[in-house]
């Protein structure tokens, strides 16, 4: 491709600045004492500490998964600091006004409307900076509707019954290596509870940022939608540019009871490393939802453009009859990025339906894999799955892979899987250029068209952001 396009790819990572604030960071290393310290710092009740220790002991006996189509040196878990919080004069900030102005500025720079005065589109935000939650906006308004939206640390103290009931109910402590690690050391995250027959009055949103050097971020999100409720939740992430790889091992659990619906959207833009593949975030995340009651619905939408390595399979367990699971994904890799991402749809209930639409775009020297599982249990009468995985290759140094597992034990189920791989065709490019659209713009248009099916699932503000993000991430990929 042309040189101009080459140069376009090399755009800078815009969220890559470091915020200079005083922070309190535990020395690197992991043992039971570290977990006790984390738990103590957060003034957690004893049962929570025991739960963490249990997870840690299980983790010690587990091995990091090797099956993914990823290559990276083994992570040294003793070189990571498991807790870092911005240091404030007293203890935790009591209100947004007490939050370090530098942090607020950071979120300002990132375009997060944290401060209520900067009201933007009425989105309630919980922002997590390194290991702790900085502040949650619109709390009062949400409280009026009965919606609980707070950091998980607060929830452990304020709503222990809900936490004890649901924490680990979808992703058990020993679920997998990274989930076990997260269960042991998770520092913060968001908790959402939507009461019965309530439609959450606004979009909820979390913004994650890793700032400190050599820290890992282990946030934990738990969303419970009680019967007949609805919530739409957005998640965004960024990190500074650093030469070292940083670990992000989050766990997200969703519980949808009867007739409830949860829509979870992610725009993931962790630092992907520089053009030589140095640095970047290892994004090893476990996300799973359970459609527990009849007629419930969980929908995952993700736009993955960041991270040096992505290992992530947002899944849905369709336990309730007539429940619906959806997965819409755009994963774009450029430079030396590697992504192994996809979904699992476990059909247990009758007449359960799942839809999977995955769009992978590989450019530069990246490797992009879709890995999915559709499992139909013998009881899942009338189950239905439709899967479509398309890959687009830009450049001859990258790879695109598809590994769908389909396991069916019910003759009454209908499953379809389709996958295609192709490049941006010369004909399409020619057609655009003939009409006066330059190559860069043309590729961007074609890619946007390729992803349209997924973008239309995103809430409006995010769809615009995702489109732009894709454009920037692709800059220089054409040539």
């Amino acid at each position, binding site marked *: 491709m042309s040189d101009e396009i080459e140069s376009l790819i090399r755009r800078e990572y815009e969220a890559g600045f470091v915020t200079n604030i005083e922070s309190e960071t535990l020395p690197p290393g992991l043992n039971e004492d570290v977990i006790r310290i984390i738990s103590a710092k957060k003034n957690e009740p004893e049962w929570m500490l025991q739960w963490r220790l249990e997870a840690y002991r299980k983790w010690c006996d587990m091995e990091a998964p090797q099956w993914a189509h990823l290559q990276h040196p083994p992570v040294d878990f003793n070189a990571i600091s498991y807790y870092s919080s911005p240091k404030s004069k007293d203890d935790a900030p009591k209100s947004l006004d007490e939050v370090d102005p530098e942090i607020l500025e950071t979120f300002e720079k990132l375009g997060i409307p944290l401060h209520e005065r900067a009201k933007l589109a009425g989105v309630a935000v919980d922002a997590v900076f390194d290991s702790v939650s900085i502040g949650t906006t619109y709390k009062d308004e949400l409280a009026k509707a009965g919606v609980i939206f707070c950091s998980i640390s607060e929830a452990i103290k304020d709503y222990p019954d809900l936490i004890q009931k649901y924490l680990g109910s979808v992703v058990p402590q020993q679920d997998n290596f990274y989930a076990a690690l997260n269960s042991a050391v998770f520092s913060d995250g968001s908790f959402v509870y939507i009461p019965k027959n309530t439609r959450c009055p606004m979009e909820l949103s979390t913004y994650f940022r890793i700032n400190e050097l050599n820290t890992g971020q282990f946030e934990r999100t738990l969303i419970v939608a009680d019967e007949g409720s609805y919530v739409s939740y957005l998640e965004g992430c960024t990190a500074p540019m650093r030469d070292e790889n940083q670990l992000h091992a989050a766990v997200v659990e969703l519980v949808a009871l009867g007739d409830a619906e949860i829509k979870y959207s992610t725009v993931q833009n962790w630092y992907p490393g520089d053009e030589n593949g140095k640095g970047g975030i290892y994004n090893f995340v476990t996300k799973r939802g359970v459609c527990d009651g009849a007629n419930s619905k969980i929908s995952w939408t993700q736009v993955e453009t960041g991270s040096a390595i992505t290992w992530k399979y947002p899944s849905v367990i369709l336990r309730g009859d007539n429940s619906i699971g959806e997965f819409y994904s755009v994963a774009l890799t450029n430079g030396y990025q590697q992504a192994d991402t996809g979904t699992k749809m476990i059909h247990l209930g009758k007449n359960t339906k799942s839809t999977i639409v995955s769009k992978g775009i590989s450019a530069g020297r990246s490797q992009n894999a879709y890995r999915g599982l559709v499992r139909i249990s013998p009881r899942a009468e009338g189950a239905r799955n439709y899967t479509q995985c398309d*890959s687009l290759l830009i450049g*001859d140094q990258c*790879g695109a892979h598809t590994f769908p597992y389909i396991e069916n034990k019910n*003759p009454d189920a209908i499953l379809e*899987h389709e996958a*295609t791989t192709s490049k941006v065709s010369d004909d399409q490019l020619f057609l655009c250029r003939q009409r006066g659209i330059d190559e860069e713009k043309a590729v961007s248009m074609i890619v946007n068209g390729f992803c349209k099916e997924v973008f239309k699932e995103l809430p409006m503000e995010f769809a615009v952001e995702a489109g732009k993000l894709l454009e920037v991430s692709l800059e220089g990929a054409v040539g």
Partner: protein
Amino acid sequence: MTPHDLKQQAQQQLAQQASLDWLSLPQKAQATFAALDMPTRKTEAWKYTPLTALLNTPYFAHTAAGQVDESAAADRLGQLGDVSRLVFVNGHLHPGLSSYSDLENQGIVTLFSNANDAQRELINAELGTAFEPQQHVFATLNYSCIEDGVLIQAPTDFKVQQPIQLVYLSSGEAQPALAQSRVLVYGAAGSSLELIEQYDSLGETNVFHNQMTEISLQPNARLTHLRLQVEHESLSQVNGLHVKLAAGSHYEQHALAFGSALKRNDININFNGSNAYCRLNGVFLSKHKQHIDNHLNLEHGVPHCNSDTVYKGFITDSSRAVFNGRIHIHKHAQKTEAHLNNKNLLLSKQAELDTKPELEIYADDVKCSHGASIGKLDDKSLFYFQSRGIDRATAEAMLCLGFVNEMVEQFPNTAVIELARQRLAEFFNDVDQLNHLWTLE
């Protein structure tokens, strides 16, 4: 018993048998086999195919073909007209049932034990080169001891008129028996050949058949390969088929396979020269408690090669079918067009199907697709039949027939289609709702 009985036993027994002394492969294979672990449930390639029963059965390797009822055996061979035929009984060539003297005289079919110097050189150069030994433990077991084998050699720019029929019969033995046989097909440049493989049995059997077939097609060579795996359901079989395709060569395979106690097919196609073409057409059926596993791997290593794969599955009763189709496009294999499709009919609540079509692509200027579907008989089609006065059972049978027949009728040899239909009639004989399927025509 430990799960490694099969391995230990095989090693002990094969050490006592003599391989052909001019072959270099067995020694290497023995070392590899010794170093490899037998697959477990955690081995990705064997995830859905449990080997516990196989590995725990003490199989004995036999040194000669056992006694068979020759007239019963002859009945199984089918009426394929003018063919050259080699018949193996439990892994050993049965001269009485075989007739291939014409091709033997022309040097087209040669037993390893009769090979001349040039042929020995060819065998040493080609055997064991079409696959990665680390990934095929049963192949290394087969090559650990090579007391004999068959070389099929199509001469340069020569069309072999007579199809060659290879028949592998399994019969009951006094003790569970390990039967191993191997065939090397070498199509010289510009040659053309038709190969018919028939895996059949004489009633119940306690044989574990570990088969290896390697095919090497030189530039512009063509091979049409028909495979019927229609043995008794008591058989256990691991079947390796490894193909190398040089520039401009053309390989076409049509397969019909029934499930059995254990049946695993590893089909591995290597594109080594540009403009080669490969077509894989297959249909597999399983009933009762049968198990059938087809693992297809297409290695597109060079540019400008095309492949088309269609496999259909028919699964009923408490049987289990596994399908894995992998298309691997290497970095420099630009302008590849590769398509793979797996369609399945799952008819019973106790049956299970696990399918995994894979794409692994490292080149950008390619067109690749795969598809997989699993479903039941279409209600609308059934309604259409019924609204025209055809009862439901007949309608179901006709739809199943159509599903399977679509693949069988593409076989480029009418005599083989006839044989396939006979075996299908036997297969469907005790499938409740379908036993009158083949009398409909």
